[in-house]
């Protein structure tokens, strides 16, 4: 439900994306993929595969010392080479992001309510009481209990799972066309992770939002996405529907990943059949 014109073609179109460090190391190598409106793509890979750098490059957020070449088109806007000033408008409107550790993504000195209010006010122009109600509504939407208490709390005063929900609420506040989630549940306990994945799944389905979901965990990716791209050492090694990749991996690396995951899982299956 984007307010602006829906561009023709995919919502996110990455072509030949290459990320290099200043001293010449190639961290992401000629990566191409697309995400259509409402589609959910999983980026899977182990540490050092370049998956997180890819999400940063998509948002034009690469750290100093790294440069991206190639093409990243987000809702018709070319990200690579675009000045920071214009990117600020794109971020939030077209794409919002949830990172692994919400504690670093949230301002430690700002109450939760205000952190959500900022993007909300920017998008809706609401003020005063209306804005406060909208904030509460946003917190209710991510199923946070006692939204009023959470709104008044500082980041360190609530649990990791609650923080991640607030981060999700912030990302959704702008009603972006694309939600980028970079290992959003890795820092959470399993039962909290399960709830968070459910929530994410429901919310993006309701809004027909596109998702770029980055994780090292095949099972987690499979839970929320339709299609996956497997990355190793900065390259795409395999791409396809989740079920195909998980049940019949083609690339040797994907096979190793799936075998590893299955092996651990089988020990659990043996003891605790599903």
């Amino acid at each position: 439900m984007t307010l602006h014109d829906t561009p023709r073609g995919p919502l996110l179109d990455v072509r030949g994306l290459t990320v290099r460090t200043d001293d010449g190391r190639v961290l992401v190598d000629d990566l191409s993929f697309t995400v259509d409106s409402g589609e959910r793509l999983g980026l899977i890979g182990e540490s050092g595969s370049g998956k997180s750098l890819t999400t940063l490059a998509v948002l034009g957020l690469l750290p100093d010392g790294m440069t991206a070449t190639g093409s990243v088109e987000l809702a018709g806007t070319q990200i690579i080479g675009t000045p920071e000033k214009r990117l600020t408008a794109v971020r939030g409107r077209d794409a919002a992001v949830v990172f692994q550790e919400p504690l670093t993504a949230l301002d430690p000195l700002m109450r939760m309510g205000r952190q959500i209010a900022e993007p909300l006010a920017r998008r809706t122009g609401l003020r005063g009481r209306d804005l406060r109600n909208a904030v509460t509504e946003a917190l209710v939407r991510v199923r946070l209990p006692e939204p009023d208490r959470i709104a008044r709390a500082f980041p360190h005063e609530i649990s990791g799972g609650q923080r991640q929900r607030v981060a999700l609420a912030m990302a959704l506040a702008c009603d972006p066309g694309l939600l980028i989630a970079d290992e959003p549940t890795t820092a959470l306990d399993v039962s909290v992770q399960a709830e968070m994945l459910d929530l994410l799944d429901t919310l993006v389905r309701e809004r027909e939002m596109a998702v770029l979901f980055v994780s090292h965990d095949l099972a987690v990716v499979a839970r929320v996405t339709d299609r996956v791209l497997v990355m190793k050492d900065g390259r795409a090694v395999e791409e396809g529907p989740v079920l195909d990749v998980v049940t019949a991996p083609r690339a040797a690396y994907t096979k190793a990943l799936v075998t590893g995951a299955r092996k651990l899982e089988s020990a659990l299956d043996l003891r605790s059949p599903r």
Partner: protein
Amino acid sequence: MTPVPEPKDAPEPGGAPGPTPVLELTDVAVRYRGADTDVVRGVSLAVEPGRSLALVGESGAGKTTLLRLLLGLARPTAGTVRFDGEPLAPRDRQQMRRFRRGVQCVFQDPYSSLDPSRRVAAIVAEPLRSLGLDSRTSAAPKVAAALERVGLPADAGSRYPHEFSGGQRQRIAIARAIVCDPRVLLADEPVSALDVTTRVKVVDLLAELKEERRLTLVMVSHDLSVVASLCERTAVLERGRLVEQGDTDQVLGDPAHPYTRRLIDSVPRLPV
């Protein structure tokens, strides 16, 4: 110190009293300075030789606190910690030496657990040297054997930790823990910081060591599949209390407590 009356039967009623537990917690509670509630309370569990134990629970459940008790790094505010049937007395040097030699540890973060300023050989030799088991020269072959056993290249000893990846660092940590031939290996989330493919290899390594060295593992983990791979017994902790313990097959296969059920159901699984 007045001896705490021994419970008539070990934690499991009906079971035949097994061999003396290597490590045993009896009704322990821990409260940190300034806190008004206990981090763990009323926990009794026993580590029997050859029966690896998993401590399962989520963050804040008190897993790490229990591990610190079992490592003799913290003292309970109530209850007793026993080693080979005797209460653990930090002042008893003789006992502490036996204890340190018999109980070693592997940590979660392979980056923080290796001193960056030391060469790998010195890191691995530390238990041998500090426990006075070996001189620098007599330690060398044992260190080399331990490094080889965990699958590291022969020149690893002369290098520094920062030259190794996370998985290799965890292997170095394991080499340090097994170099003095302990009976019990305490492991705090030993593979949760590792990638899946590396994780499988390290789990395999631990399983092999368990077999060939008659090591008993005591593992803190939130990862039930790792627990299922390595431990014969499982104890489930929720907010500082033991809610369920027993054979892993039984705890994971037929959980008696709803919390355990919820943990099992939360594990994300690959579609079949």
